[in-house]
């Protein structure tokens, strides 16, 4: 046993010291004879070795902690959207898919994938991705082996309004671009070169330079194909002008989309942790849709100008959670600038829909609305003199529109449900709507039943019978093959329903 073995170990060396000198040592007290060569070696070598090992261990631990911290930070935070910084501010559409989302999204996705046998292992998911890339590349002439070695974490699409309408100039024929982040620009360029020789082999290719970035432009029949690599982002576009604008944006010479208030406002209302993002600039889009002749619902030019002035942006985010996947969307507008009838629809306050209380627990599904009165008024104003049956009766005569029409007595809550009928393969359905008075609804239903019977000759209101269930009286009239019946319940929510073999009408 060496005397030094009883001494406390030396303190760890400072970080980075290669061979620290041993600290001053107290005199040994056990053996005063001069140490032999062997024992001298055994005194000094372990000390040096220990200090070296300790130093190395500390360095490894610190380096590991730093690397782990960086990895954990990247895992938790994911990769930020680097594509949007090169998308021009006047773009009408931008979509981004993040292949390196925040940690919460990765874990949620993993949970979801594990529930599907087809994708519940890493290798299976890998196979599906390769298959998808191979299918995508069948016509273009590439395989997953050409893409995956350089594929980065961001995929994006951007478009300007002219991409949705008539081209202003041939070179601006298709102002859209696909952006794919690259981890190896050399390999990415090799794939682009391969595409030129395959899918676009009939094109005439030329090189251009814009602000130090080389563009490859292919001209063939139709939309040109323009490619460039900017800030480790592969850009594939249909317009030279648009790519030039993207290069200017990437180089800080043009405002980017993420610097606009409309984009910032839309994004601030969406979840920060997400898998994908979609942004649509409604004013930019309406500009173009107005130019192609009433594509926006056949509205007039003045209404389109009003809409373009009132609407801002639409943002949508794809978000995974442990029990499902969600798309959350938001549409911003200035309600003071909306057309009056549309404002009436959009300012209906949200509420707990009363029709929901009448949807059976085993329903296949339902649709509920809280602003049925405003919605119908919006559409019926243009059709009050029109008959759904052709000629007569009109909506006024049916008791739908007009001063005593059922529309003016609707509270707004309404629903449509489809239900499972025990013992039958055919589902049943019911339309539910709430009124502030039963009289107008009664008139409407009576008129409707009489008109249907008259027009179809399949029933007669004179054969109407009554039934009662839980204090609610219903009426029905037999059809040739079925019966039709509708009835109100005590909460003044009439319902029209259908079931096999009978259809109920009030």
């Amino acid at each position, binding site marked *: 046993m060496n005397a030094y073995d009883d001494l406390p170990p030396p303190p760890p060396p400072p970080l980075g010291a290669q061979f620290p000198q041993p600290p001053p040592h107290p005199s040994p007290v056990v053996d005063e004879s001069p140490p032999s060569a062997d024992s001298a070696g055994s005194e000094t070598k372990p000390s040096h070795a220990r200090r070296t090992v300790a130093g190395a261990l500390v360095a490894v631990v610190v380096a590991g902690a730093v690397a782990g911290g960086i990895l954990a930070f990247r895992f938790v935070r994911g990769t930020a959207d680097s594509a949007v910084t090169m998308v021009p501010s006047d773009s009408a559409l931008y979509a981004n898919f993040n292949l390196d989302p925040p940690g919460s999204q990765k874990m949620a996705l993993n949970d979801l994938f594990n529930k599907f046998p087809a994708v519940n292992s890493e290798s299976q998911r890998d196979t599906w991705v390769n298959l998808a890339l191979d299918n995508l590349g069948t016509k273009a002439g590439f395989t997953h082996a050409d893409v995956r070695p350089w594929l980065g974490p961001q995929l994006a699409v951007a478009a300007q309004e002219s991409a949705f309408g008539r081209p202003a100039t041939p070179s601006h024929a298709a102002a859209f671009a696909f952006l794919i982040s690259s981890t190896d620009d050399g390999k990415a360029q090799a794939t682009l070169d391969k595409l030129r020789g395959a899918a676009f082999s009939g094109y005439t290719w030329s090189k251009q330079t814009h602000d130090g970035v080389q563009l490859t432009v292919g001209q063939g029949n139709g939309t040109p194909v323009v490619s460039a690599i900017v800030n480790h982002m592969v850009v594939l576009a249909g317009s030279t002008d648009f790519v030039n604008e993207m290069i200017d944006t990437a180089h800080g010479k043009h405002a980017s989309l993420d610097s606009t208030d409309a984009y910032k406002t839309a994004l601030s209302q969406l979840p920060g942790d997400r898998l994908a993002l979609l942004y649509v600039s409604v004013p930019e889009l309406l500009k173009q849709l107005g130019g192609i002749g009433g594509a926006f619902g056949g509205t007039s030019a003045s209404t389109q100008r009003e809409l373009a002035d009132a609407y801002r942006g639409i943002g949508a985010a794809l978000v995974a959670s442990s029990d499902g996947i*969600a798309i959350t969307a938001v549409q*911003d507008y200035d309600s003071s600038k909306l057309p009056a009838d549309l404002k009436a629809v959009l300012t209906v*306050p949200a509420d707990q829909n009363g029709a929901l209380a009448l*949807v059976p627990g085993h329903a296949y599904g339902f649709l509920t609305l809280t602003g049925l009165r405003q919605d119908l008024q919006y559409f019926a104003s243009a059709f009050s003199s029109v008959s759904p049956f052709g000629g007569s009766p009109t909506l006024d005569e049916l008791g739908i529109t007009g001063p005593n029409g059922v529309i003016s007595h609707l509270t707004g809550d309404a629903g449509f449900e489809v239900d499972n009928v025990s013992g039958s393969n055919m589902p049943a359905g019911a339309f539910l709507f709430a009124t502030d008075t039963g009289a107008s609804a009664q008139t409407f239903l009576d008129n409707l039943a009489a008109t249907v019977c008259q027009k179809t000759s399949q029933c007669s209101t004179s054969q109407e019978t009554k039934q009662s269930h839980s204090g*609610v009286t219903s009426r029905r009239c037999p059809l040739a093959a079925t019966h039709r019946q509708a009835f109100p319940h005590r909460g003044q929510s009439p319902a029209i329903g259908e079931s096999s073999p009978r259809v109920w009408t009030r």
Partner: protein
Amino acid sequence: MKTIIDSRSNGGIGASPDYVAISSHINSPNNAALYLDIRAIVSAIRKVLPAEAQVLFDTTVAPNLNPVKGLAISGSNSPDHSSSTLFLQIG
């Protein structure tokens, strides 16, 4: 129709555990909502398939379709924006 009337007393769709779970992911209150019980719809479709098709369905489609329970969509308006949510329930 009778089941509609009875829904007022037995809780209706509001007493369905799957609906309760999915409704926590959509806007409530709202201006519009759509709900589809996908599992029930798929089950109903399976029932009307021929026997051979049912076997094929059970072995190839069902294992990867069973986790999809329902779909809900909601929309709500406020003075300066409208928002909507689509949720596909997987369990």
